[in-house]
């Protein structure tokens, strides 16, 4: 192949990428700043597989929520509002260095405030709502998205939170928890995509690195920014929402 021919082909391939990035930056609503896998993007087999993987976690979460509500029926509305809060948090604008803004996932903060299993249920409902209200994510990919955003991310983040509690200053702990939650979501989604679409030349690893590289541009700065934002929110809550934090068991009376 001549040099010019090669150049022409590469331009053709790079163009949609540039267009995608340009549009993603111009329209925050259409931006893949979140790691949702689109409706229909996963082949049928993988879509079903991730539904089955998520199922046990949903059942555990459901049992926990049910137990919580039998013991404290008055928490019914609090849980609903917490779910609303988690959904709306993703509409918050975090300023980013590039000049436009990105959106937090709220996974880390939700996990710290409400615990990983409750977030698993509320986050899954939020994902259904996102699929039907803002056309982000989808029903066939709900299992995969829930696994990365509502289950995997929160569980890993909760592990980090428990591990560091009492050992590190709370702002360090909050930052690391929120950062790890985003990072875990990013790594799980990347793996899900790489498993479903292994590279014909370099296999799973090659495709993993390609997906990871493409999403790193938006996801790594986002994870840092969300970490900082979560620390700021948490600090503000500790000073101005003492009663609420005590009710959730996050602050001594």
């Amino acid at each position, binding site marked *: *192949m001549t040099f010019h021919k*090669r150049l022409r*082909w*590469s331009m053709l*391939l790079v163009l*949609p*990428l540039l267009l*995608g990035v340009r*549009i*993603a930056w111009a*329209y925050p*609503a*259409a931006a*893949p700043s979140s790691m949702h896998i*689109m*409706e*229909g*993007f996963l082949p049928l087999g993988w*879509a079903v597989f991730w539904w089955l993987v998520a199922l046990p976690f949903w059942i555990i979460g*459901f049992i926990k929520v049910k137990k919580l509500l039998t013991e404290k029926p008055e928490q*019914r*509305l*609090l849980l*609903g*509002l*917490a*779910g*609303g*809060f988690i*959904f*709306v*948090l993703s509409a*918050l*604008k*975090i*300023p980013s260095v590039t000049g436009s803004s990105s959106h937090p996932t709220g996974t880390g903060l939700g996990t710290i405030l409400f615990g990983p299993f409750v977030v698993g*249920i*509320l986050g899954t409902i939020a994902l259904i*709502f996102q*699929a*039907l*209200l*803002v*056309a*982000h994510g*989808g*029903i066939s990919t709900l299992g995969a998205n829930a696994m990365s955003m509502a289950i995997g991310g929160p569980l890993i983040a909760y592990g980090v939170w428990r591990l560091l509690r009492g050992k590190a200053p709370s702002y360090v702990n909050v930052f690391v928890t929120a950062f790890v939650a985003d990072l875990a979501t990013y790594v799980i989604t990347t793996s899900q995509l790489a498993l479903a679409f292994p*590279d*014909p*030349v370099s296999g799973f690893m*090659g*495709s993993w690195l*390609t997906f990871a590289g*493409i999403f790193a541009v938006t996801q790594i700065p986002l994870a840092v920014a969300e970490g900082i934002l979560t620390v*700021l*929110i948490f600090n*503000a*809550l500790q000073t*101005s929402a003492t009663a*609420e934090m005590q009710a959730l068991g996050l602050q001594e009376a």
Partner: protein
Amino acid sequence: MHIIDCYAYSNKIRAVDPAQKAGLAVIVLGLCLAFNHPVVSLLAVAWMWGLAVWQAGLPVLVFGRVLLAELFFLALATVAVALSVSLNAPANPDAWLLPVGPLWISSTPDDIFKAANLVLRALGAASAMNFLALTTPLVDLVDLLRRLRFSPILIDLMTVMYRFIFVLMESLNRMYVAQDSRLGYSSYWRGMSSAGLLGSRLFIEAFQRSQRLQTALDARGYEGGHLQVLPTTYYRSDKLLAMSAAAILSLAAAWLVL
């Protein structure tokens, strides 16, 4: 968000039984995934777009705009499917190559076809769900889950969440405008601290709203148990049913013929 919700309430087939609309959307979604054929996917987009315009009376461009947003969303991930990155030059003679430092970026006509098929499949599946989202309010879908004997606890959670998403979103926007008009987002760090403040106030608002709501329910004699709402009446549309059957049969026929 408001666009989709507005049309969900104001379209012409809003009062049609949600089971009928959800059934159609789920079957078309399933067929797109199962057949995995570009023509079937294109046909699905055409049917869903057509039904949204002729049956639900949506403006032609609204459906297109939602679909376009989803297309951009797809763009980045699809590039990774179309391109291969490897350390060694691939052996395939059909491959287009582009060396970047020590890496080879390559692609074959096959990969491009696969990526195009993927985009079409995702668009076909997404248009089925868009049809449902644009013609059926979420409350109707939650009501459908209730009819399907879904857990009452989760249904209550969904009902409360749906209602308060809009309330909290409005608070968020009001607070954001107030901060922004006082130069709250004029620099990076100021913006960050404003966003932090906003997030914490939002949480406090959500928490206190839930307490006030609880008090209001207690005052009306609520003693736990499931939240009761008035049922909505739906009707069955034979016209939509016939069209749904035609759509599903044509998708299956397209797959059989090709």
